[in-house]
């Protein structure tokens, strides 16, 4: 178990012929690896100067999200990122990197500063999901996420989003809207945690690896879907084993993207960002007539059913037709 958490392959395991389910699950474990570098670790390695800013000016400061200014080879940037803990103690303080609404509001505040002072934004995404507790709901986690997404869709400054570890649903997306979305090789990105997906669709969390495969959540698959624009390879065993080399590779990509995006006019940049997200999600358009619902049955049938409830003569009731007010099935986190 410890091995799995640390992402070490177990003894005797040959890395070459791995079945796809095991491979994606290994990647999920690597993305969650506790030794994986986090936002501040990356910045310390990448940037020459870092100034962290605190507080959302409304409620408090959320340690699960860090934000501020940094300088990378003379380029001034604003950064935002989730920050998991390096050990249990820090994890408790940082709420395992699961932000509350005030975290996203702090992030929005810094991003607005960035827009005003013409600083490009670099975000580091590594989050299991936004904090799902009552405090979060009371302070409007959905509101904070939706507003952050809306803000990032129109900010007049370049945005580079980097999925460094777990890209967990809305909590990740709230800071992952960008002109370019980059992922580290062992990162994952999904609409719901594989455990949550399995619990809903397979009725057991044990099927999490199956769900992970079905959702195609690995960075490589997300690249194919176009959700991610670029995958940065990790050295050796992964980012947790060689954080310095990972940071060096990331730095080169960030500098390249900063220079590339800064050359684009702001109007064109924001328009292109809108187009990028406007195009997501394939559908077909058909002119065929609407699907006919099953015909309603006549009075005679109903009377027969009433008189002889055991003998049901009608069609088997379809799930959607059920008139009972069942408790809702949350489809997503």
């Amino acid at each position: 178990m410890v091995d799995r958490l640390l992402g070490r392959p177990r003894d005797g395991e040959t890395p070459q012929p791995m079945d796809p389910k095991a491979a994606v699950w290994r990647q999920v474990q690597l993305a969650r690896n506790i030794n994986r570098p986090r936002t501040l670790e990356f910045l310390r390695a990448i940037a020459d100067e870092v100034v962290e800013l605190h507080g959302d000016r409304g409620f408090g400061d959320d340690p699960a999200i860090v934000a501020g200014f940094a300088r990378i080879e003379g380029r001034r940037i604003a950064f935002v990122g989730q920050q998991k803990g390096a050990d249990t103690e820090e994890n408790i303080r940082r709420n395992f990197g699961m932000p509350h609404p005030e975290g996203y509001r702090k992030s929005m505040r810094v991003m607005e500063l960035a827009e005003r002072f013409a600083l490009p934004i670099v975000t580091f995404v590594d989050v299991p999901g936004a904090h799902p507790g009552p405090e979060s709901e009371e302070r409007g986690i959905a509101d904070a996420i939706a507003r952050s997404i809306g803000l990032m869709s129109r900010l007049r400054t370049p945005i580079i989003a980097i999925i460094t570890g777990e890209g967990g649903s809305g909590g990740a997306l709230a800071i992952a809207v960008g002109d370019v979305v980059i992922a580290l090789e062992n990162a994952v990105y999904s609409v719901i945690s594989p455990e949550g997906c399995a619990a809903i669709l397979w009725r057991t969390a044990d099927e999490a690896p199956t769900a992970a495969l079905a959702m195609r959540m690995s960075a490589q698959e997300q690249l194919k879907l176009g959700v991610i624009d670029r995958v940065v390879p990790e050295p050796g065993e992964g980012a947790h084993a060689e954080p310095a080399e990972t940071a060096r590779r990331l730095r080169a990509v960030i500098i390249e993207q900063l220079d590339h995006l800064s050359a684009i006019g702001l109007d064109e940049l924001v328009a292109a960002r809108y187009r990028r997200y406007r195009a997501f999600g394939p559908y077909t358009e058909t002119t065929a007539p609407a699907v006919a619902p099953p015909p309603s049955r006549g009075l005679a049938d109903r009377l027969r059913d009433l008189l002889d409830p055991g003998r049901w003569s009608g069609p088997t009731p379809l799930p959607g037709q059920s008139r009972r007010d069942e408790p809702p099935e949350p489809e997503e986190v």
Partner: protein
Amino acid sequence: MPIKLPSFRPRKDAYPPDLWTKCPSCSEMLFNKQLDKADRVCPRCGHHFRLSASARLALLLDEGTFEELDAGLQSVDPLGFVDQKPYPDRIAAAQLATGMRDAAVRGVGRIDGRPVSICVMDFGFMGGSMGAVVGEKVTRAAEEALESRIPLIVVSASGGARMQEGTLALMQLVKTCAALERLRVARVPFVSVMSDPTTGGVFASYAVLGDVNLAEPNALIGFAGARVSAGTIAQELPPGFQRSEFLFAHGFIDRVVPRTELRAEIAAILRFMRPGDDGRQAESRGFFDPIGFLSSLADKVVPDLGPADGIDAAPQEAINREAANREAARNGGRKRGTARRDAEPGRG
């Protein structure tokens, strides 16, 4: 071999499911036809049952004014997703059961004579989950509102993003929020109505972003499903957690409105929030034309207003037309009033 005695007492769960409904709140047995007539609100305790998209549209819009748009949009299976059933099979089953193509219906209609762009969700179709089609319909409804400068109304009923479409469903959050940002900048009003349930990615995108947020009583509204909350953090949930009244108490909903009053409330709100038109007010599909009224009034009050004052922002062709009219006016006829009305950006 056991002998099976015939039972003459009809078992409760053997009632034909399409005839009676048991109210989950007060356990009253309700005759479905009467329930439908009461907009699916329990006449005894006021419990709000879920409403299908078509019933919702009939409830909110002026009779016969709804015109459905983009009815042909249909989901595809971008991931090749198979859980216990392949995703295309799930769609087909839901289509057969509901007669809908996907979980949302969009179009234009009128509320109290006022044109609106409206998108309504239906929980009956795969839990109202948002995939590419729902995202596209909401976005197109917003774009329609922006283009025609008419208010946008979205009625949500959804468990959240559709897992079977993976991160592409997640991207619908950005697509819809970005379209709403444009609406906001353009000062076109957006009224979000949340019905039971509005959770997950739908709540955390367009549903929560209404200029005015309305909710039906006791609707489940929240970000994380209650099971997730309870499972992830071993913590007692407060009573009424994630219900309309809870969100109202915490300031995320403007008004909790019973279904029977919903239409009147929306109409009242829309009377205050009219789509802005660069500082001027304009009715897009005018019954009452304040611009025309004001300009004809201006003509009476300031008959000698120089033509240059009025045409700064007018499009070139209008300027030309006005010049022609001025020519005509000099020739004796007093036609400037019409010319000025023409000079306003056309929003007929």
